[in-house]
């Protein structure tokens, strides 16, 4: 059966494979090869039979075709109520059809499935809250992505992304040395302003083990410095692991479940190796979802919990403000209208809506809720890996309109987005539509507002 050199059913496990993919400009050859990729119907059907159990089968079967999911989907809204964007239609015409045909589908069908699974759904899970039967099409699309991955029908960037995790245990080619060196560098760069500032690597028995998104050491290392400053201000006994510091999972977006398992195991190993009391992850939504919410199941932890209690950054911030570990200078609270982008991955799918509001109460004078908000908030438009897929840029940009209108309706100038994907999508939204907003993570804002105790100030 024809398998491409780049586009095939193999996973990417060596640097040579990865480099070959990276050198394929825009994935041109990759997608060309995909046109000739065979579908292994037998294997596909075997996988479906093994993994499509009563929950998913019931969902596929009992869907009443009532259309109540339609308005829950931001793609449907953004595409002028295009009926082909109704979640039920999207899943019935892909996974539903795949099951009806017992896996006997052709290349064109699989490409259609891939395009649907990655460009018409961000797995935000909002539709599941609007279906009377509780049919969660986000869950089904995530499952469908897994099927696509096994057949090699996966967007180029995500094939690369899952390969990165397999090779580097990080979504980008950041090695252990790069990471440790970045920690040293940031401590050096900021220690003059913050005497005593350190970024302790591999400290045993700390109170907090801090983990990040690989983009931070790669491109925005000041984010790491800012985290260090806030821990320093709060007087936390913290550390970062030299290995197992990456929480994100492009593998999850790709549907490469084996790579997901490898990735979170590296983090759990760090927890077990360094024996900290708890884990805090940076301002990233899918990182939390992957490592804290889904990860325990990938690695077969029966209680569904991480080895040590794990917290999203907003939980730590709320706690630090609540207990007074970090004090906000009332004069420096945010005065302008400000809104908060509820990330699907840690608000809808991890229940942290209240801590987010608690934080806003401490730092903002004119906080304005988006409508809808909390667990009912719309996806930023770039979730589920969509931000990074060149092939679906156009569809992504259309989808951004819903978030644009939501933000405009609040009248806020500043959007706080403690999630890398949301942050990126809102940046791109501003680039695309130029509505004149600013956006920020919490860290830089907090440093600006925090009262610095005298003993932590630099000598002049």
């Amino acid at each position: 059966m024809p398998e491409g050199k780049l586009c095939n059913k193999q996973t990417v496990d060596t640097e040579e494979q990865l480099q070959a993919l990276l050198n394929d400009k825009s994935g041109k050859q990759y997608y060309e090869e995909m046109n000739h990729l065979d579908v292994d119907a037998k294997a596909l059907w075997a996988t479906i039979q093994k993994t499509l159990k009563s929950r998913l089968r019931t969902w596929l079967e009992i869907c009443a075709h009532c259309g109540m999911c339609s308005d829950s989907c931001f793609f449907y809204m953004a595409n002028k109520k295009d009926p082909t964007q109704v979640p039920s239609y999207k899943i019935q015409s892909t996974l539903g059809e795949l099951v009806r045909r017992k896996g006997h589908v052709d290349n064109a069908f699989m490409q259609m499935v891939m395009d649907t699974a990655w460009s018409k759904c961000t797995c935000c899970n909002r539709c599941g809250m609007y279906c009377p039967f509780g049919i969660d099409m986000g869950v089904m699309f995530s499952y469908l992505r897994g099927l696509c991955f096994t057949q090699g029908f996966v967007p180029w960037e995500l094939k690369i992304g899952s390969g990165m995790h397999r090779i580097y245990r990080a979504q980008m080619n950041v090695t252990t040395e790069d990471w440790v060196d970045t920690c040293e560098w940031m401590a050096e760069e900021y220690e003059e302003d913050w005497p005593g500032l350190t970024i302790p690597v591999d400290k045993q028995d700390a109170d907090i083990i801090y983990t990040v998104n690989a983009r931070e050491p790669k491109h925005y290392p000041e984010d790491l410095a800012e985290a260090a400053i806030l821990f320093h201000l709060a007087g936390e006994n913290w550390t970062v692991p030299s290995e197992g510091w990456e929480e994100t999972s492009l593998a999850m977006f790709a549907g490469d479940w084996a790579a997901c398992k490898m990735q979170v195991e590296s983090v759990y190993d760090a927890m077990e190796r360094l024996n900290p009391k708890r884990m805090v992850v940076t301002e990233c939504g899918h990182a939390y979802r992957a490592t804290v919410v889904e990860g325990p199941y990938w690695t077969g932890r029966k209680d569904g919990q991480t080895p040590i209690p794990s917290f999203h950054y907003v939980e730590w911030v709320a706690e630090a403000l609540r207990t007074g570990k970090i004090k906000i200078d009332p004069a420096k609270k945010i005065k302008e209208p400000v809104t908060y982008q509820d990330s699907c991955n840690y608000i809808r799918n991890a229940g942290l809506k209240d801590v987010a509001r608690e934080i806003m109460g401490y730092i903002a004078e004119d906080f304005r809720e988006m409508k809808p908000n909390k667990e009912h908030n719309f996806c930023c438009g770039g979730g589920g890996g969509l931000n990074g897929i060149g092939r679906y840029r156009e569809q992504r940009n259309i989808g951004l309109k819903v978030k644009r209108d939501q933000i405009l309706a609040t009248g806020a100038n500043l959007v706080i987005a403690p999630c890398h994907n949301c942050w990126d999508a809102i940046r791109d939204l501003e680039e695309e539509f130029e509505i004149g907003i600013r956006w920020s993570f919490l860290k830089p804002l907090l440093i600006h507002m925090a009262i610095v105790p005298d003993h932590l100030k630099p000598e002049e």
Partner: protein
Amino acid sequence: MFEKILFATTGTPTCDHAAHVAFDLKKKYHSELTLFHSMGMPSRGFSQFVKDSRTGEEEYLDNDYADWVKEELKTYYAKQLAEAEGVLFETTAGESHREILRAARKTDADLIVMGAHSRDEEAGATRYRNVVGSTMQRVAKGAKCPVLIVSRPCTTCLWYFSNIIFGTDFSKASYSAFLFAYQLAKAIGAKLHLFHALDMSSIHAGKAVSQDEIEREIAEARERIEKTYVAKMEDYDNYEVEVWEGVPYVEILKFARERNGDLIVMAHHTREVDPEEAVLGSTVEQVVLRAACPVASVNRPDKVS
């Protein structure tokens, strides 16, 4: 002095004057020169897209592209390269200021040379990462070594620096700037002008100040310069102390012009203003924008003491 120079360039005419100075410095001091170019920010989440910092076009980041960019740089600086030996090339993708700082750290540079603006900023693309403030300013803030910013043709520099203007506000960072200015002056036999401007814009805002008081403050500042800096200069006597009053950046520019200054050395204050307000705020930024000569920003003692 100037053993390892990092020249951060966009490879466009905006950096031509800086290039001139960088290559001249290499010639004079036999420095190791690294040409560094940050190709642009990989955007689109984790994707391989790069917005080329020279053309503004969207490109895919791969080895071919990186090689192509290096070739472009070599072509662009062909004339200078013909006269210089052993120039190194580095390119990378990322946020410009961050990557310049990373490269400076990696190459252990003791001087960064750069222009004041990149094309990106001209195009108003500062919203790129929602950081206000230019690459130059952020490099100046974070760099451990002096940063030489060249935005105009260096007409006054006659084989490099005969009148070095050191502007101080007596901060800790200013002391590092002093060390750099002093060592440089001593090494090349230039005249060192130690200058301070009494800030009339903020200190005395809304309050009438008597001439007596101004004069008293000027005398105090002179004394402070003598004590803080002149005392450290041992037997070096080719210097002058001057204190004026007014808006600091205006005064330092006026002073530099009057004394035919060919290099202004000052501190970029790490905590002076936060970058958001600093677009118009920081003195160093204002001086860079208007000065006829290069400006060296020194913020830390690491590479000057």
